[in-house]
Structures are given as C-alpha cells and as structure tokens.
C-alpha cells in the first residue's frame, strides 16, 4: 500500500515538467562545478605530487561536487515537496486517500518514500559524473560510497521537513517558502561564532553532513538524521490527524 502511494507520487512527478526541469538544471550546474573542480585539480597536480599523503581526486573533485549538490538541493527540495500534501488538499484529491482503507501513517510514509525515490534517482545521476573518472584514474570508492550515503541522508532529511510543512498549508508556495527558510536556517546555524554554540552546532544539518563527506561515518551523525526524519514524519502524521479533527 505504501509503495502504491509512493509509485504514484513518483510517476506524477515525472508526468509534470517539474521533475525533468529540476533534474536537468541541477545536473547542468553540478556538471559545471564538477568541471571547474577537475580543472583546478589539474592545475595543482604538480604541487600535489611533491606532498606526502596528498589528497586525491576523490577529496578534491568528488566531495566538493557532492557538497555543491547538497546546497543546490537545499534550494530545490522545497519546490519538489511543496505540493505533496497541500495540493491534494487544495484540489480535493486527498478525499480519495482518506476514504480508502489506508491509515494516515501509510499515506505519509508513502508520500515520503515517493520523494525519497526521486532523490535516489537524483543521487545516482550526479554520481555518474565522478564514476566516469574511473575510465582514466582510480577513485577511493569507499569514500565515494560514504558521500552518496551522506547525500542520501541529507536529502531524505530535507524531504521530511518539506513534507511536514506541506501538510500545514493549502498553499504550495507558502509551503515551499517556509521549507526553504527552515532548511537554510538549519544549514547556516553552525556558522554562528561566539560562546555556547555547541548546542546550535549539534542542531545544524551541515555539521552532520560535512564529516560524512570526508569519509567519516559516525553513528551520532546517522542518529541525528534518523531522528530528524522520524520527528518530521511523526509531526506530519499528527498534523494530518488533527486536521481530520478540526476540519
């Protein structure tokens, strides 16, 4: 049941030009960023050769591309998640789900899974670029896998927040704007300088995402993302239930 809802969500994303344009635009920008990183790598390669323990192509090309992907998706995810629930509520199609023998949890998980599947397609597409380097050089594949995993967790977290904010309003643009605001805040919150910033840093998405890009998979970081995602999913379920009560 969850997969039926997820597959419909995914299909309908690809039936509209939105998904295609998002994939095309982000791919184009990331290709440019990837290209400039490679150019940069070629330029400094002679100096790197003299260094012991020099960073390799994975560190200098692949990981910056993944970081750029995270930042671009910070701006793009709100556009993908905004209509998940708000539009169904606005044009009344939510009644189909609510009068069918599916629970609120199944509806919310289905929608979440749908958007996460889209994110997976996105991750696979941008990972093609680094993988194409395998034709000419060696890559640290473990590090690449860590980067993909980090991006997956990050984008799932973005999606869960977007899903929740989409359940709060009937207006997709409001949902998109508030999702963008929340994600950006959680991204930059760790840049705070001064005392007592440890707690804020712990809240930040970036401070849990960046270490993984360096190949450092920490249980605490994974736990952060899992908690982040489940919190927003639970909030969404609660919100949908209370809307049934309040109408």
């Amino acid at each position, binding site marked *: 049941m969850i997969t039926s809802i997820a597959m419909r969500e995914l299909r309908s994303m690809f039936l509209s030009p939105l998904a295609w344009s998002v994939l095309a635009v982000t791919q184009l920008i990331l290709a440019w960023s990837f290209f400039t990183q490679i150019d940069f790598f070629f330029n400094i390669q002679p100096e790197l050769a003299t260094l012991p323990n020099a960073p390799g192509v994975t560190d200098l090309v692949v990981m910056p591309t993944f970081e750029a992907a995270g930042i671009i998706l910070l701006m793009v995810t709100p556009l993908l998640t905004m209509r998940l629930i708000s539009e169904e509520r606005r044009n009344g*199609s939510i*009644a*189909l789900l*609510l009068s*069918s023998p*599916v629970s609120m949890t199944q509806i919310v998980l289905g929608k979440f899974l749908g958007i996460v599947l889209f994110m997976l397609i996105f991750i696979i597409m941008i990972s093609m670029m680094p993988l194409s380097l395998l034709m000419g050089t060696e890559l640290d594949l473990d590090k690449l896998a860590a980067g993909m995993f980090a991006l997956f967790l990050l984008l799932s977290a973005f999606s869960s927040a977007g899903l929740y904010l989409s359940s709060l309003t009937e207006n997709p643009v409001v949902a998109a704007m508030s999702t963008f605001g929340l994600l950006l805040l959680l991204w930059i919150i760790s840049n705070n300088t001064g005392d007592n910033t440890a707690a804020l840093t712990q809240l930040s998405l970036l401070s849990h995402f960046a270490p993984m890009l360096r190949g450092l998979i920490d249980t605490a970081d994974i736990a952060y993302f899992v908690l982040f995602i489940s919190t927003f999913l639970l909030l969404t379920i609660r919100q949908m239930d209370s809307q*049934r009560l309040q*109408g």
Partner: protein
Amino acid sequence: MSSQALISVNNLVRYYGDYCAVDNISFELAAGDILGFLGPNGAGKSTTMQMLSGNLAPTEGEIHINGVDLLDKPGAAKAALGYLPEVPPLYKEMSVDEYLRYCAKLRRIKKADTKDAMVLAKQRCGLSDVGKRLIGNLSKGFQQRVGIAQAILHSPQVIILDEPTVGLDPIQIREIRELITELGKSHGIILSTHILPEVESVCNRVQIINEGKLVYASDMKGLLAQQATGKYEISLHRPPSVDEIRATDIIDQVEQLGDNSFIVHISTTADKLADTAVNNNWGLSKLVPHEHSLEQIFVNLALGDGEQL
C-alpha cells in the same frame, strides 16, 4: 443497532470551532436502500457525508459501517465504503485507466480481479472509450463519471455520493440515475443532492437536514401517501358556483383558483370526482392531483415552519 444495517449513525455531532454544523443526527441505512439526503446550502449535508467517509472526525457520536466502528477500526470500515465527494478526487495528470488502477490498489482489490473491476466500472459509467485519455483533458461530466467509477470500483456495500449529477447533461443525468437505481438493488446508497426530482425518481427513502438537525425522515411510500391528501386541481368549461360544488356529496372543501379552476378536497378517490363532474355536466377539462410535493415539504422545512405538515 440492528446487525443488518449497512450504516448506523448514532448521535452524530460536529463542531467547527463554536459553530455547530451537525447537531445530534441519528439514522440507519439498510441494504437495498437509496437514501436521499436533502437540505439547503450550509445545512450540514457535506459535513455529514465527510464524517461518514472518514474524511472528518466527528466531535461526538458513533458511526458503524457494515457493523464495524469507523473510529475504532477505520481500515476495516472503509473497505466497505465508496465515496464521491462534492469535488471528484481526481489526479488530472493521470489517464483514466492509470487512475482507476491506482484506486484499485488503494481499495485492496486483488491484482487478478483488478482488470474485471475496471472494465465493469468503466462500462457502468460510460467510460469504456476514454480509458487512455488524461483526466485533466476530459469534460466536467466525464470527470464526474470517473469520480463515480472510483466510488463503485470495488463494489462496496455502502456508496456515498455527494451531488453525483452536478455538471452532467440531461442524458448523462438519466444514465447516472439508472445506474444508481441499479446499484441500489445490491448496495446501500446515500445520495445528497439539491435536485428534488432526482430524489423523487431514484430514492426509496428521504431525509431532510436543516441547520444541522434532521428535520424530516420518511420512506418514499410515506411521502407518496402524504401527497395523496385528496387535494385535486380541476378545470371546468361550465363552472358552477363554489357553493354548488361544495353541495355535492364527495367534495369537502373548495378553493377557487381562477374563473374556471378550483382546488377541491375530496374524501374518496379521483374517479368519483370525475364521475361527479361528468354527471353534473360541468365540462371537466383537467383533473390533476394537487401534490404536497417534496419541494413543498422542503421549502416549508427550510423556512422553519415544518409544523404545517
């Protein structure tokens, strides 16, 4: 609550903030019933329908669908339910077939049965030729039919239709009414509508809601009996005076409408009235029952003077 009742509603109450939209409604629906649910705008019809379909939670009260509590076991209760809301719940970017296949999955129709169910639903709603077309490109009437197809796809015991004939042309309306009548033989149907002749033509029970309260409930036979109150409108070529008419045996009361037409109250059947008119050589040209129609009942109730009935 009897065990045969497909829907049984007890003391249903729904508040929007302080505003009471539905106030203590109770009713039952048995298999084979087609219940017409009438009321002026804002009376609480759609709210009641939304609660019955699980889209809204009631503030108080109980709903049992096919004997299963909708609030305790929503999954099991909703499996026996087909619902067409006021606005059909369609995904405009999908084709009719894709949409119905998705509905079949949501309604837990087995894969092997899906195709048959889709063919039957499309055939019943006259959609056989448009299966491949996008719902967004269909006309309002066809979209409405897709909405109905979705509600009957899994042949649920209970079908709830909120204004099903809105936006249809007269031929489609007739087809949908025939469909409802046919479905009503094996299912229980609740039909909300503004169109009173629709209720008179398809429903066997009628129920009027006003300001959140159930103000009238009757089966159609009761209504027809009420209509046959012995009031007839007659037109005569050679009208006698009012007193002369009143002097006949069978006529209790006379009101003069125009020069030639009268409303008469009789205590016997209409053929006696015709005989009387012929025997007295009044030149009878028209004799029609002066109905206490559903429309009158509706208007009386909506204006709040239901006591007249």
